[in-house]
């Protein structure tokens, strides 16, 4: 059920305590809008679940309603900046040991693409990535920017345990496992950085909108 439409976005009824802001496509505009929403401190808003082209807004249904929240959101959407100002962008560097025991699939990925392992490392670490959103597991960042030549299919059968810090490729995506979990991504390296640490503030190393560089060590 569409509650409102403006500037190429739709507000949809999601549940009795949430609404879904939907953009036509994944774009920087979503990240800029997310910043605006976070800064606005909207009454009754308790949580945000962003994804590729949507932001789920969870609210306290005793404090506010869909209509009230939509009423606060519409002017924000109309006035949200369309482009990022340069100073606001944060770049996080992630040191990675490519190959070896932490990156058991590096050679396979190289062979799959008919290039050398050193080429894979060069391509993967030369690219600029951007955190689109976090999901799947706490601290797991969906990154855009993997060079198309590195797009690699997942493992046929997932590993039962992938260690925390493993850097992998799956399809057109790359990312870092924040905690040990089962997983089907092709592992090309490992970082010692803790992507997610509940005893730290902030818990997550990465936030939506961060730029990421992988640094070979």
């Amino acid at each position, binding site marked *: 059920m569409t509650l409102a439409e403006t500037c190429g976005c739709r507000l949809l009824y999601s549940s009795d305590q949430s609404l879904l802001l939907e953009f036509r496509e994944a774009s920087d505009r979503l990240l800029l809008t997310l910043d605006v929403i976070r800064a606005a401190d909207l009454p009754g808003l*308790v949580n945000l679940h962003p994804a590729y*082209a949507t932001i*789920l807004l*969870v609210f306290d249904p005793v404090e506010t309603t869909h209509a009230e929240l939509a009423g606060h959101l519409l002017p924000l959407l109309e006035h949200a900046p369309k482009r990022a100002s340069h100073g606001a962008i944060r770049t996080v560097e992630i040191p990675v040991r490519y190959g070896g025991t932490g990156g058991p699939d590096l050679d396979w990925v190289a062979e799959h693409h008919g290039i050398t392992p050193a080429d894979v490392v060069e391509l993967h670490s030369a690219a600029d990535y951007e955190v689109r959103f976090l999901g799947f*597991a706490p*601290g797991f960042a969906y990154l855009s920017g993997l060079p198309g030549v590195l797009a690699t299919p997942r493992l046929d059968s997932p590993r039962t345990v992938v260690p925390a810090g493993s850097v992998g490729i799956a399809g057109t995506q790359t990312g870092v496992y924040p905690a040990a979990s089962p997983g089907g991504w092709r592992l090309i390296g490992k970082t010692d950085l803790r992507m997610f640490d*509940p005893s730290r503030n902030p818990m997550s190393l990465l936030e939506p909108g961060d730029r990421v560089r992988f640094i070979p060590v």
Partner: protein
Amino acid sequence: MISVQSPGAFTTVQDLGRPGYGLVGLSRAGAADPVAIRLGNRLLGNWENTAALEMTLLGGTFQFHHGADVAVTGGACGPAMWKPFRVAPGGILKFGPITGGVRSYLCIRGGIQVPLVGGSASTHMHGALGGLEGRALRKGDVLELGSEEASGVIRSGLRPEVLAALAYRSTLRVTRGPQADRFDAANLARFHSQAYKVSNNSNRLGIRLEGPALSLSDGAEMTTEGVPLGAVQVAAGGHPIILFVDQQTTGGYPKIANVITVDLPSVGQLRPGDEVRFQQVDPSEAQRLILDRETLLRSEEIFL
């Protein structure tokens, strides 16, 4: 202080959860039956958000080093439900199987003291954080209790008509999900008429349901989007899953419906093998029910 002599089948420290971390992929967690923990705490004069023990399927055995006032709420787990009683110093509380639901709350005046993570004591199993070391209780664990100084008056119990009004439901009311239009009329009708069985493979992340599979008009593929608590996702096999308190914050399966807020405590009490049905209500009805429920829960008239 209390010592865990037996943790039961699965017991965690919970409060009302940790909202605000969806941005980094961490869901809210908190009590699976928030009404039970709120009322248990209010009966004891605690703040509603005070940490308690959530016991699942089979309750545990706990020794109290000092005397304490406690209340047991939620699924029935022993004779003294929904009314505070006193445990003597050195006393042992031993709980058995949970019936009439699947989760019981052991609330203690002053609450359970654990280090807060992101402002909450609740254990998030998937994120391995909060509660006691981010895990379920084990035999031999020792839990600190909070100070009783700030606590209010202890009540003698709840009016029977209040408990009747809060009875757990096997027909869950739902609003229409954002991808309901991907299901044709026959499949939507089937979803709202047939009984589903709660799978053994259900937990705080999600309640898996078994029954005749639903089919989607144009496949189960969709772009991953933010998903709310209580969303009913239909995965590729055609079986619904209710996303629950330790849920993933995003999901890539169509959502046919969403359990309404006032029926979420009933989801928290679904036991493997239980039968559930879904009944659609309007958003305005869902909203009215929330406000009615909240008026009831905040009232002073609910106590004996």
